[in-house]
């Protein structure tokens, strides 16, 4: 990796239109000169049509800039409802970690870490402003980023506020409470803006609260609609999958991640989290709708159009929130609007996204041992012998899952779906013996792992066309985000701090660069001043790569 003086771009930045507002038409196109929403576009494919960086020149990919970001109040615009504090709250469980996929609009990158939002010159990495939120608490585990509407930015905080900032200045416009941190809610998602709806989810597994998705007005912040992930009372659709009102009102189903959207069908596709109590189903017999499901919601009303439950009655913490990826493909000879998901429970699903019709289910890890097979709807049938017992059961995957939040990718040029996978084991011990357990209800002990790999799945058959197993020794494994491009490249990270370019057709490694930390977000790419950049977050830093010209 060579560093070089990037004087040309620095000069160009002076002429750039900083803080240019987001043209909503950009949201309906494949991402080229902007990355205007979490997944680049609404499809969740994380495929870029750019090919300036391609197989022929990727060997010359070189660092344009690297920039570190320090969370905390120092030098920041300060807001928030919490106590006066100089404590650096984003240095939570993982330390300062960029899990967000920055938006890039008008030459400016916008991203967040827990309690912190930043604007950065996309040409140089120079910070333009920094906003810091004084927190009341909540688990500071990660933040997936910001949403944008015109000049307005939106991000969520661990203590459950939706905060809107002026993208030009970083000054706060308003903040709205979306949930109660004292009930153990904490919020990590990146808001998704569709039309004049800011879609906001939340999280929190510790004390059995119900999940929801709500739409906010981008101007006023007012709630337009709210969709609960469980039925609220006996007699409501889905209530037959719970024993009583009390269990469904404490049924979990968190909305941890941004969903995807089909503008023609006007449907928002969202994965929902696990039911609660998390690791024991004693007090919630039944399928527990709409937890661990893919749901299609009318984006104007929040009404559910259809659902598909990937893990009926989950007892292993396998949130089904992994990106529901949308693409148009050929299914048994006919063109069809498809939705595919590589789920945390270890199965790959393909559905018809117009109506939720099930098309395919196949496992994508070899160690999976918790299901006895599939039912007529293609849903895995959980083996009751693999639910937590006092004396323990060995389960694969572990609660971290066969994959997790880092975004997958679908490449229309190869027709392959790419996912970062883990083959791990855990023993689940039932710890809460009450007939009405609370929280997780079980203790889990890690029992080892066969390691992590990058897998390329043929969506028509579920067959793994190629996989690359990462050699590694110790350290944290875990999945990493993926980007594919028309330059016939796939970018992702390994657990040894390498950013790697693969040939998406066959898994051959074409380029790599070792960073100062492992890749912690989904890589993105955009064209700026006619030059294609690849931007990736690793720990507290953003790295921008380009082809030397």
């Amino acid at each position, binding site marked *: 990796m060579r560093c070089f003086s990037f004087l040309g771009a620095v000069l160009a930045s002076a002429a750039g239109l900083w803080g240019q507002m987001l043209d909503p038409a950009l949201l309906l196109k494949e991402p080229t000169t902007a990355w205007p929403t979490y997944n680049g576009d609404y499809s969740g494919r994380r495929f870029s049509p750019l090919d300036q960086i391609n197989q022929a020149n990727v060997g010359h990919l070189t660092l344009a800039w690297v920039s570190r970001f320090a969370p905390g109040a120092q030098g920041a615009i300060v807001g928030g409802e919490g106590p006066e504090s100089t404590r650096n709250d984003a240095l939570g*469980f993982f330390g300062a970690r960029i899990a967000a996929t920055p938006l890039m609009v008008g030459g400016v990158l916008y991203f967040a870490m827990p309690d912190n939002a930043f604007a950065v010159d996309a040409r140089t990495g120079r910070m333009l402003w920094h906003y810091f939120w004084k927190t009341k608490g909540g688990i500071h585990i990660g933040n997936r980023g910001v949403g944008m509407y015109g000049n307005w930015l939106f991000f969520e905080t661990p203590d459950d506020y939706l905060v809107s900032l002026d993208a030009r200045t970083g000054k706060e416009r308003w903040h709205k409470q979306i949930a*109660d941190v*004292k*009930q*153990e809610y904490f919020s990590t998602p990146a808001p998704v803006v569709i039309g004049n709806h800011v879609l906001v989810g939340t999280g929190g597994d*510790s*004390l*059995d*609260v119900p999940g929801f998705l709500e739409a906010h007005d981008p101007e006023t912040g007012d709630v337009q609609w709210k969709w609960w992930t469980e039925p609220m009372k006996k007699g409501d659709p889905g209530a037959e999958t719970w024993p009583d009102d*009390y269990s469904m009102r*404490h049924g979990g189903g968190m909305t941890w991640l941004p969903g995807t959207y089909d503008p023609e069908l006007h449907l928002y596709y969202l994965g929902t989290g696990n039911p609660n109590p998390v690791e024991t189903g004693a007090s919630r017999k039944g399928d527990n709708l709409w937890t661990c499901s893919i749901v299609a919601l009318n984006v104007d009303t929040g009404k559910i159009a259809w659902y598909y439950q990937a893990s009926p009655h989950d007892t292993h913490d396998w949130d089904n929130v992994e990106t529901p990826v949308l693409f148009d493909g050929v299914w048994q000879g006919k063109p069809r609007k498809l939705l595919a998901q590589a789920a945390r429970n270890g199965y790959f699903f393909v559905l018809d996204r117009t109506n939720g019709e099930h098309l395919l289910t196949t496992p994508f890890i070899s*160690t999976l*041992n918790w299901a006895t097979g599939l039912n007529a709807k293609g849903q895995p049938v959980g083996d009751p*012998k693999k639910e937590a017992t*006092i*004396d*323990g*059961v*060995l389960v*694969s995957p572990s609660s971290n899952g066969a994959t997790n939040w880092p975004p997958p990718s679908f490449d229309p040029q190869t027709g392959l779906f790419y996912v970062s996978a883990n083959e791990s*084991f855990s*023993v689940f*011990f*039932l*710890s*809460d*013996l*009450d007939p*009405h357990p*609370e*929280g*997780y209800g*079980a*203790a*889990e*002990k*890690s*029992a*080892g792992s*066969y390691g992590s790999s990058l897998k390329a799945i043929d969506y028509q058959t579920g067959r793994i066309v190629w996989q690359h197993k*990462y*050699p*590694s*020794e*110790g*350290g*944290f*494994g875990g999945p990493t985000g993926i980007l594919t491009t028309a330059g016939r490249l796939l970018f992702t990270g*390994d*657990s*040894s701090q*390498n950013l*790697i370019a693969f040939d998406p057709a066959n898994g051959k*490694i074409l380029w*790599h660069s*070792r960073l100062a930390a492992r890749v912690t977000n989904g890589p993105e790419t955009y064209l700026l001043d006619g030059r294609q950049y690849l931007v990736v977050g690793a720990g507290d830093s953003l790295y921008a790569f380009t082809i030397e010209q």
Partner: protein
Amino acid sequence: MAAGAMWGQAPAARPAPRAGMRFRPVSGLDAAAVERGRTVYESHCAFCHGANAKGGESGPDLIRSVTVLDDEKGDKIGAVVLNGRPDKGMPKFPLPPAQIADIAAFLHQKVFDAAQRSTYQVHNIVTGDAKAGEAYFNGAGKCASCHSPAGDLRGIAAKYDPPTLESRFLMPRVGGFEAMMSGQGPDPRTQTKVTVTLESGQKFTGRLDSIDDFNVSLTTAEGEYHSFARDGDRPKVLVEDPLQTHLDMLTRYTDTEIRNLTAYLVTLK
């Protein structure tokens, strides 16, 4: 390129685990107040709200109660205790402020215990058949081909409690997250061995320090560190994990075999 970029100097620094670093949260509540609160709760509240505060026949669950969750040192709970909920049949309890504060401490501890999974207790896991476990150890499990109760496993049950003992035979190498949680360093017996063979035929063997698709590094028995660039299958790299059999077993064990093995191993005091 496969050039053996060597620097036979000081061993590479593995990140040293911080001694005693633990991520177990603490409630921060006064344990004596929690215990006093338990006594007051049991005599005044348990009849309706259940012995464990999860709700009874006439009183609701207090652990998931928004009033309890919003409470700070009895400021919300106190009002309910003193005034009762006449509309719901809850009488008034004219308790002094100190006792209300103690009840609050007890309930907040119950909330903490439910919400903090890293504090959950594993109960008795020794439910297997020790004789069957011994037979598995010497037979189908092939444990005896590497281990013996009179040798390396002598007194093992005195060293570890049953859940730890079971964890240690399922995966003896404590790594990654678990290592961070426990603050334990690597056990030398579980360290992976690697042999790097250059095109010249020169071989380097030692403890594997790091490996990815682009580099492999090792420390020899003499303490010399060597690092090699990797390019596909050049140079040749042979990784030998002493725990490979343990890993392979994870897809072979039945839960019954694991329980029986645990029941047998806990007899090796």
